[in-house]
């Protein structure tokens, strides 16, 4: 960057010598730049090759959705010869009298309510962990971290029994209640980490002005937390959208199916050779996730990066 300053001639006496060394250093710089250029090309070739391998399954899925069913399995190519939307029309017909859009709508309701629940409950709880001194805070914080590591299978059986006794199987409530009770520690943790990095002088100044915790939280913290809230919302949406286990347990009525279990039913019901329609349905089930990825990739990647660091 600052190579020119280092080779400035000191004065008239040094001119003869410095032209020689100037030429020499220019050559050195050129070879260094060439070597750097060559290394950069090698880097891009290697990395692009890995990208091609990694993205191949996703590209293959999308392309296959446009191919006739008998040309999918074993067809390595990713350029369709006779592309058509036939598979999509078949996928959009729905399953067993239930429209595709019913599944889509169910998934959307679940995902949107998950986002609402997580943003509210986790930000409020995170404020308590990050900004209020109260007895028991440290213990609760450790317990919260503990739930982050706990295999959730140890709670699903009693939860199922209770929801079953309350007649809540075949409703969305078992899938959503945890979102409104900050049960997903990942988001609480992410927001606590974010809030801890906000300057404390802000709330102290507000306190001197007589603001209570409710004011500080709503008027100061929430606006500043926007990046963390956006990251959490995107993850909450995508995880809810992709969730398979919860709907598998609690949604028995096809009218209530979310996309992933509808997709599973679709695969079960179509003849195994109808790969085209299966691929089309698989693609349709991922469209919102892919859209979120394209629009918010930076938030997602940054969210993952910070999550791992300050522990």
């Amino acid at each position, binding site marked *: 960057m600052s190579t020119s300053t280092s080779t400035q001639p000191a004065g008239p006496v040094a001119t003869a010598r410095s032209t020689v060394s100037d030429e020499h250093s220019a050559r050195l710089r050129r070879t260094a730049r060439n070597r750097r250029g060559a290394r950069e090309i090698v880097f891009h070739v290697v990395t692009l090759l890995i990208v091609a391998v990694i993205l191949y399954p996703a590209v293959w899925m999308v392309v296959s959705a446009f191919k006739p069913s008998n040309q999918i399995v074993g067809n390595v190519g990713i350029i369709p010869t006779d592309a058509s939307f036939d598979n999509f029309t078949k996928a959009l017909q729905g399953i067993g009298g239930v429209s595709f859009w019913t599944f889509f709508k169910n998934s959307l309701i679940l995902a949107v309510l998950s986002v609402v629940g997580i943003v509210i409950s986790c930000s409020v709880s995170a404020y308590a962990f990050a900004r209020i001194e109260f007895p028991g805070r440290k213990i609760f914080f450790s317990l919260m971290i503990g739930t982050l590591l706990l295999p959730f299978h140890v709670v699903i059986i009693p939860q199922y029994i209770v929801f079953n006794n309350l007649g809540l199987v075949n409703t969305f409530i078992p899938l959503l209640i945890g979102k409104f009770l900050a049960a997903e520690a990942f988001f609480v943790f992410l927001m606590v980490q974010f809030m801890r990095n906000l300057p404390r002088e802000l709330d102290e100044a507000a306190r001197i002005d007589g603001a209570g915790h409710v004011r500080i939280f709503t008027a100061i913290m929430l606006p500043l937390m926007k990046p963390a809230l956006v990251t959490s919302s995107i993850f909450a949406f995508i995880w809810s959208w992709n969730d398979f286990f919860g709907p598998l*347990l609690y949604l028995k009525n096809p009218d209530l199916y979310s996309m992933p279990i509808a997709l599973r039913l679709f695969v079960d019901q179509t003849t195994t050779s109808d790969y085209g329609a299966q691929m089309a349905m698989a693609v349709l089930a991922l469209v919102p996730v892919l859209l979120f990825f394209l629009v918010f990739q930076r938030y997602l990647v940054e969210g993952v990066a910070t999550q791992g660091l300050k522990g």
Partner: protein
Amino acid sequence: MTLTAEAPPTRAARPARRPSSRRRSLREAGAGYAFLTPWLLGFLLLTAGPMAASLYLAFTDYNLFAPPQWVGLENFTRLFSDPNYTQAWKVTALYVVVGTPVKLLASLLVAMLLNNAFRGKGFYRSAFYLPSLVGASVSIAIVWKAMFIDGGVVDRGQQLLGFSAGGWVGDPNRTVPMLILLTVWQFGAPMVIFLAGLKQVPTELYEAAAVDGAGPVRKFFRITLPMLSPVLFFNLLLETIHAFQIFNSAFIISNGTGGPARSTLFYTFYLYIRGFQDFQMGYASAMAWVLVLVVGAISLVLFQTQNRWVHYSGESK
């Protein structure tokens, strides 16, 4: 009441400060618990309560219809003579022990490849991250199955290279490797975390090592690895715990059977079958608690050994 009783002497010493500060800390505690209410309720109703309940159920025979019957340790003794249970441990252990290190190694290597000053890193990082976002979905499980089936794309590729062996989906010896490939494919999330860790390694360390004549291998083992060890610890812990819980892909690829030849009967899959297909809630609870104890023991060992190999530098807390 008690406050006023002991107030006079303190008031004499420090006028009016103590009661008000105590009242303030009381108010702080009230506010703390008020704000913590959602999490606290969730913790009690959805985690702690159910954990206690499943611990009780683990010692009972319960099928949802008749009340639970206390059977003592019978569920646990039955576990160890249940061939399906042994099988579930076998495939799960293989998946965890092979899949996690391979995934972490891949993510570390690619992170080091991307940790340079060249352009286009943002694009590569996002492209590598995409599989982590979609990998656990039903869609990708269906794609994986279609790719690894007899005569599928992977089989074709093997034929071209001259070592075709038929499909992976129907071969009990290759279903776990197929699912390991699926998890390794999702190396992007740990890679992003490694990359963030690599950025925090001070470049002066490498410059000083270069002056001392250290080569790339020594730089890696003397600087990169120690500086990265907190991040490595975090990734290892989370990926291991995560790997124990594989379910979706095995369920979809085996059509909910755990086949062929029980080769995809992973731990949580078998738990699901016992609990929610056979409605043996007591047995499934015992399985769940064994899993918690095993995962807890592994976490404990990792945390206990961390001061031997995890290096926390002075400035990071």
